């Protein structure tokens, strides 16, 4: 090793404020986007396995002579499961894993905003997962001859954007809650996975459920997001819809505001609590 007198930064122009906020989002999103290219196991776990579930439902529906639109519903639902898995495993329990890895302490002592770190995780996860969902839709549509008739591209994009914002907002909120959990984070994620598949209507229209069950399930943004998207892209979708698209858009807007505000509030609160109780560093230290 050689001594180098230029070890000091000459004139550092470190940015602060909103530019630091944006830099943090991009930097934290980077590992998710790059990681997808380098770790190919997602093709099996996030595409092949959900496709098996989709295929099973498709064959059941065809065997019992259900309307052909149900096949399209299932393909859409299969694609959306990627987002739910991403939020559960890569958002909610992520801060816990970051803590155990030693990253959380480094995020906290840096001058960045923790909200920007969470947003970066969400943006990176959303980007990577959208690709996975698109692959499922394309592959499922080709395999099972699904046809689409989009009623309004603008509304479709709006619903998708709102559903994703609310969903990842919910992920950011639960990430803060999970911060105080130890290994239970893993079990809670496991516990939440399958019941949500049922009550959110991933593989059938939620109108089939009891009204109050469907209304309660609407707290998960994918429930109404998926229902509205189905109404907008399948000719008979509106007949099988739970609420009207406009009402569902309005509820999604409320969920966006609710979850993002709660995420910010909870993150601040949990950070203070964790600092007070000494829970920000990995268990071994």
């Amino acid at each position, binding site marked *: 090793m*050689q001594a180098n007198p230029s070890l000091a*930064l000459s004139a550092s*122009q*470190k940015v602060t404020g909103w530019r630091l906020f944006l830099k943090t989002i991009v930097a934290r999103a980077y590992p998710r986007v790059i990681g997808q290219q380098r770790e190919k196991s997602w093709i099996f776990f996030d595409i092949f396995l959900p496709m098996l579930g989709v295929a099973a439902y498709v064959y059941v529906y065809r065997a019992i002579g259900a309307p052909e639109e149900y096949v399209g519903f299932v393909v859409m639902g299969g694609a959306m499961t990627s987002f739910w898995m991403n939020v559960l495993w890569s958002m909610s329990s992520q801060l816990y894993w970051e803590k155990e890895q030693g990253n959380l302490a480094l995020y906290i002592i840096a001058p960045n905003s923790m909200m920007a770190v969470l947003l970066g995780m969400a943006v990176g996860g959303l980007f990577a997962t959208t690709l996975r969902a698109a692959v499922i839709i394309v592959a499922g549509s080709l395999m099972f001859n699904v046809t689409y008739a989009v009623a309004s591209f603008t509304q479709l994009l709006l619903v998708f954007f709102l559903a994703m914002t609310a969903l990842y907002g919910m992920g950011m909120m639960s990430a803060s809650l999970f911060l105080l959990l130890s290994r239970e984070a893993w079990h809670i994620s496991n516990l939440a996975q399958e019941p949500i598949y049922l009550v959110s209507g991933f593989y059938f229209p939620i109108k089939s459920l009891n009204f109050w069950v469907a209304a309660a399930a609407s707290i998960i943004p994918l429930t109404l997001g998926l229902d509205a998207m189905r109404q907008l892209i399948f000719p008979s979708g509106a007949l099988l819809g739970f609420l009207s698209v406009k009402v569902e858009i309005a509820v999604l807007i409320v969920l966006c505001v609710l979850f993002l505000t709660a995420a910010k509030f909870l993150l601040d609160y949990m950070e203070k609590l964790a600092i007070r109780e*000494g829970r920000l560093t990995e268990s071994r230290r």
Partner: protein
Amino acid sequence: MTHFAIETKDLSRIYKIRGNKKEKQIRKELVALENVNLTVERGELFGLLGPNGAGKTTLIKILTTLLAPTSGWARVAGYDVTQHPNLVRPRINMVSGGESSGYGLLTVRENLWMFSQFYGMPSKEANQRIVELLKMVGLEDRIHTKSSDLSTGLRQKMNIVRGFLTDPEVLFLDEPTLGLDVGAARDVRKLIRTWVDTSPLPSGEGKGEGRRTLLLTTHYMVEAEELCDRVAIINKGRVLACDTPANLKRNLQRDAIFEIETSPLNGLTSQILQDQPEVKKAALTDIEGGARLELILKEEAALASVINILTQKEIKVKRLTKREPTLEDVFMDLVGQKMEEVEKEEAPHAG
């Protein structure tokens, strides 16, 4: 601007520990830090020396805004860590020994770049600096290696570079050479000293101002002795002494320090030796084929009484050396035990 980079006053931290299922209601308390008063001047390379579980990491956590003190206060770079963490954070960084931070799928450069962005460094400047710093630690040929493919030593060098990369006023290194081989540890120590000596802050004026400060925790005596301008010896959450290594040892220079290698001890204990009026401290360690006695005597003549006891117990003296005091002797003089003995006793509570 205060000329202290770090200042603590009556700093204490008590952890509340929940009992197991049967003792749910019983909440035990563990005093991790007790009334710690320390000042570290700007430009100092300051060492916290103590066994595992002494409270070093707890102190670093408080100083880096990761943990709230139970009582007392601490200032870093002139700002109170509890009241103004947002003013402290842009001015500090921290590296822990054996940490596995970053993402294994990212390369060394990408990991370092990512962390630089959290401090608002322009990408171009960050990338230039990453190359420069990696060259200094001899890691430039691994710049495109995934961090999961690095050995422990190389990974720790990457972590050290992460600490220097953001150009902090005060850098905290928690056991930076933990688990490293001799060569890697030497490289890391060299880099640490170089950084403190050759990295002025851009607008430094006056005593110590404009110089970087580094607080290092270690339980390696040699590391503290070789690197640190001043050392605080800490045990069971309390600072027992704080001075330059030379001054700490000077206090022992009127004492006589002997190291004796013997045959097996035949029931001899350190207490038997310490009961002798002129024996200040005695520590016994089992070694292959016998034992090693380390003695701090009030005067050299007291050696005769020790030899007498050994003879009575039919213990043979294989080698006898008189030596200069080390920080290990200072620790033994202050605590009454060698550091490794304290670590063995405290192992279940370490943290």
